[in-house]
């Protein structure tokens, strides 16, 4: 399946994959990402508008804002980091889109947010991958 995605390249930031076990490292393809390391042009896994083959969207009646406490923490952390200019909203979206396709498709909404926040914290030098892993 993955062979159909052009320009798949290796990502040495794979250390992030063991972070708290939230939505990461679900498939045995650690270290692979759709990031265009080879410089080729490609569509990212998030850009699925008009694509067939997905199940119908399941709407949840009286859906709560958060399904677990950690989701609210991720929401607040992201707002704080955006507000302090650690990264901007487009960098945040980009970080989600750079998730390995198999992780992107298997992750919930806030699992994607958590992945982006921790990825950007390391890339921006706020903390090391080891510190993120350490919790």
């Amino acid at each position, binding site marked *: 399946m993955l062979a159909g995605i052009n*320009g798949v390249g290796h990502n040495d930031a794979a250390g992030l994959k063991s972070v708290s076990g939230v939505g990461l490292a679900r498939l045995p393809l650690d270290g692979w990402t759709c990031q265009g390391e080879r*410089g080729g*042009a*490609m569509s990212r896994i998030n850009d699925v*508008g*008009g694509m067939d083959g997905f199940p119908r969207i399941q709407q949840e009646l009286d859906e709560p804002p958060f399904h677990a406490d950690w989701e609210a923490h991720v929401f607040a952390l992201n707002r704080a980091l955006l507000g302090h200019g650690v990264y901007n909203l*487009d*960098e945040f979206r980009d970080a989600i889109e750079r998730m390995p396709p198999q992780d992107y498709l298997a992750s919930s909404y806030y699992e994607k947010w958590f992945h982006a926040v921790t990825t950007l914290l390391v890339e921006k030098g706020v903390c090391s991958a080891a510190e993120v892993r350490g919790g």
Partner: protein
Amino acid sequence: MADFAAGDQVRTTRFDPPHHCRLPRYVRGAAGTVIEQQGSHPLADDRARGIPAEPEPVYTVRFLARELFGSGDHGVTVDIWESHLSPMKGQDR
């Protein structure tokens, strides 16, 4: 780059860049009609890569569903940065 007005015929960029891009794949390379301008905003494609970006016009552009998806009598409107649009010449329509 050109400033567009309501009613102008435009075509979107065909290029599929290897970075964050706010032009959806399903509308790439498509011909549409400018409906109105939605203010000016820095190009998200640049901001996502840490490249300084000045505000540029963003337009609501209408496409025909049947031209994008092969069927449908409705229109599809997408807000698109000017960088992703080019004016359509007579022979291009």
